[in-house]
């Protein structure tokens, strides 16, 4: 156990990031369990504590008798300085145990820009970076989460990945560990055992060869236990799977400081740029009764004053009206306010939001993603301009005056005309407001146009695409800046250097591991934080390793190229992605899963929307 002195804690920002002891946190005696799992979120406490997946798996693992799970976040740089000065290794929040003493150190991969923090945390924990440098005494380093589907640039650092939804697979790994722990067998033997579990990927069991130009030539298992293709795991029946009745309630405020009630997984829509829309297929939803009972338990155990529904698209929940009627009855009785993100705006949802947000009307967000109809068809965003204008009209008449519009630039086939159409659409929304008589709308209109830069992701129809270069993103941002000058419209954009690097990481191969290591050693960490992001150091790392980042994000791949993630199977076929790519080029819209099955391949999971 590590003792962090008052001198240190009183000298750092937000010391409760490091002290633990929050309501519903679980502290188990190390001697009472067989397996100790350090659940690491490679970002600061307030971000990591907002993540639903971690909450689920934390309570799930702690519900197992022989397992304890403790939380670890990246210490903020001020704390890191103190830890290094006082020789304090990275520790867990529950028992303040050194992370290197755990059996498993698991990182959740939620976004690419957190990768340098993984090395940062291993470093602080005094755990060797490379799996081949770690010995029998070191913990197993594992990863999971959406970015694990292609985490090849981390392949040299972790021992295994758990692909897909974690509730079942993590328990199977814990079972295997219990059998292995005192068996006297080597760590490699353990990895061979779990490599046979569906969804487990052990990168060291695969040899990757490359063509001279850097493209992947082959990915071949080098032990008989490794499967040629690793298929992701899903939970077939969400009504039967573990969902925590408790959530850790932090003392300080965190980003999402509320109860999160997950209503379904997956998305029926199939927007072609959206990785989440494919990797979580097929759509499976929870029964209203299951949800209501979860909601009640969570209100009782946390005392939270706010609850939010969680899914990729709330409106696609099939019995939303019935369900929300019962849920609002409960939340009103319990004095809990309800927030309803990702709702499509129609008469029903406006009425619902007016009911639940009696006090404050926070902003409403629309995501047309593109300004022009042509480009919306390319990306399969199944909405038209009239939808946006009608929704805005309803919202303004319903009393909202603050509307956010989300767009992307740099999408495949995009022209300057498409970019400028973003400004046109924003002005149409502006005009919609001003056409409503003054006594029927709220004062002080605010429209925020937020533009992010497109990052082609693996496991999408755009995985073959070339990404715009940084300068091109900036040129397009400037085009819009000149157009969006109205005082009531504010324009926000993402840093394009971050997007470019994200583009490189997203379609990484193993050769990028050394770049990551070099960049970390030059001082890169907290890359998703503007104040710490150092593109210059990344550039130096690429140059020193002799790797051209353009190879990863500035290249149109041919249909038959072998991807670095070719051995990973998310259940959606490459054939389907290719046909979707063609549909994008020919501006053909693909119907959503409930309208008509598009034959993506996810029927192989025997469940969900495919069999409704």
């Amino acid at each position, binding site marked *: 156990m590590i003792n962090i*002195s*008052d*001198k240190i804690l009183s000298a750092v920002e937000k*010391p409760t990031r490091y002290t633990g002891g929050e*309501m519903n946190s679980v502290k188990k005696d190390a001697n009472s369990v067989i397996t100790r799992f350090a659940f690491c979120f490679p970002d600061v406490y307030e971000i990591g504590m907002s993540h639903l997946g971690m909450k689920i798996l934390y309570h799930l693992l702690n519900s197992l008798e022989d397992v304890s799970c403790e939380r670890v976040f990246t210490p903020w740089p001020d704390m890191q300085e103190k830890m290094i000065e006082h020789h304090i290794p990275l520790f867990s929040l529950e028992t303040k145990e050194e992370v290197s003493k755990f059996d498993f150190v698991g990182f959740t991969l939620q976004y690419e820009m957190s990768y340098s923090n993984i090395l940062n945390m291993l470093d602080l924990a005094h755990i060797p970076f490379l799996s081949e440098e770690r010995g029998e005494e070191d913990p197993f380093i594992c990863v999971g989460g959406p970015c694990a589907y292609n985490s090849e640039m981390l392949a040299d650092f972790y021992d295994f990945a758990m692909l897909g939804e974690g509730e079942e697979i993590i328990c199977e790994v814990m079972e295997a560990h219990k059998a292995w722990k005192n068996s006297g067998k080597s760590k490699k033997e353990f990895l061979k055992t779990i490599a046979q579990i569906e969804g487990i990927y052990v990168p060291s069991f695969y040899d990757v060869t490359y063509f001279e130009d850097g493209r992947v030539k082959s990915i071949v298992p080098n032990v008989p236990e490794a499967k040629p293709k690793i298929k992701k795991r899903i939970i077939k029946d969400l009504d039967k799977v573990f969902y925590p009745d408790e959530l850790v309630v932090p*003392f300080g405020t965190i980003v999402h400081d509320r109860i999160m009630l997950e209503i379904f997984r997956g998305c029926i829509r199939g927007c072609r740029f959206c990785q989440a829309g494919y990797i979580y297929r097929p759509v499976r939803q929870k029964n209203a009764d299951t949800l209501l009972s979860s909601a009640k338990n969570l*209100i009782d155990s946390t*005392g939270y004053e706010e609850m939010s529904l969680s899914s990729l698209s709330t409106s696609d929940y099939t019995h939303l009206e019935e369900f929300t009627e019962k849920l609002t009855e409960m939340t009103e009785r319990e004095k809990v306010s309800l927030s309803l993100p990702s709702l499509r705006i129609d008469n029903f949802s406006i009425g619902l939001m007016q009911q639940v947000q*009696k006090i404050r009307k926070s902003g409403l967000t629309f995501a047309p993603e593109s300004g022009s109809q042509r480009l919306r068809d390319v990306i399969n965003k199944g909405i038209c301009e009239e939808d946006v204008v009608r929704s805005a009209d309803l919202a303004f008449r319903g009393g909202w005056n603050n509307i956010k519009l989300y767009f992307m630039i740099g999408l495949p086939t995009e022209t300057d005309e498409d970019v400028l159409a973003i400004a046109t659409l924003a002005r149409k929304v502006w005009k919609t407001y001003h056409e409503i008589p003054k006594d029927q709308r709220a004062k002080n209109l605010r429209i925020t146009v937020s533009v992010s830069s497109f990052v082609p992701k693996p496991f999408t129809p755009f995985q073959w695409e070339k990404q715009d270069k940084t300068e091109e993103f900036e040129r397009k941002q400037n085009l819009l800046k000149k157009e969006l000058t109205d005082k009531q419209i504010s324009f926000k954009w993402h840093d394009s250097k971050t997007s470019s690097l994200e583009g490189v990481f997203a379609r990484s191969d193993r050769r990028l591991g050394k770049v990551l290591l070099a960049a970390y050693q030059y001082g890169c960490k907290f890359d998703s934080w503007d104040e710490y992001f150092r593109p210059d150091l990344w550039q130096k790392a690429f140059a020193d390793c002799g790797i051209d980042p353009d190879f990863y994000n500035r290249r149109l791949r041919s249909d038959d190229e072998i991807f670095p993630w070719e051995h990973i199977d998310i259940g959606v076929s490459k054939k389907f992605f290719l046909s979707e790519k063609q549909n994008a080029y020919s501006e053909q819209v693909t119907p959503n899963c409930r309208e008509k099955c598009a034959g993506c391949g996810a029927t192989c999971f025997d469940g969900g929307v495919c069999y409704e």
Partner: protein
Amino acid sequence: MSKYRFCYAKEDGVKYVSHLDFIRTVERAMKRGHFPVAHSQGFNPHPSMAVAVPLSVGLTSKCEYMDIGFDEPMDNLEELKERFNAVLPEGFHILEIKDLEKEELAKFKFIDIGEYEIYVEYDGKTLPDIEKFMGQEEIVIPKRSKKGLSDVDIKPLIHEFYIKEQNDFSLIFFAKIAAGQVNLKPQLIITALCKYQPEFHGEFLSARRLKLISSEKVCF
């Protein structure tokens, strides 16, 4: 509305929980416990709750007070205490509850004195001369306020100050000082001591509040 005064302790594990975070913690605890807490009227109802003399972050206490209003009278205060402790995070602990209708206790705004133990680390060599320190005409230290740094004489705010315990490299001071409307943070006495007696190499570690006193009436 029936009002009750809660006397509670704040221990080591939660001493970095700020005042505002503590209030939110209690509000959530009361929701977990389903207590019939009275709420303010208006658009954004808040539980009826007041805390006496907020404790600085990093300090512990064995006697904090908060008044909580309930919609109905609470008959069994011993049971209420136990139910409350069951829903509070470890480190916050209700010690006793009193009925404000039955006992006349000081209003929070009339609390003016606090007693503290102050924990200080030092080099184990030169002890401070407290008699000399307290015998000074004035004890001036720079104090940060909204207007910036200004010099303040804290002498009138110190009622009692002495070394209570002496160990190899640490000292425990006792301080009876102004608390409430006019408030002196216990760490500032140590700052002052080190300023006036540079031969004393002490460093403030933490402090524990022992008592809150009102010269008007008993607090509890």
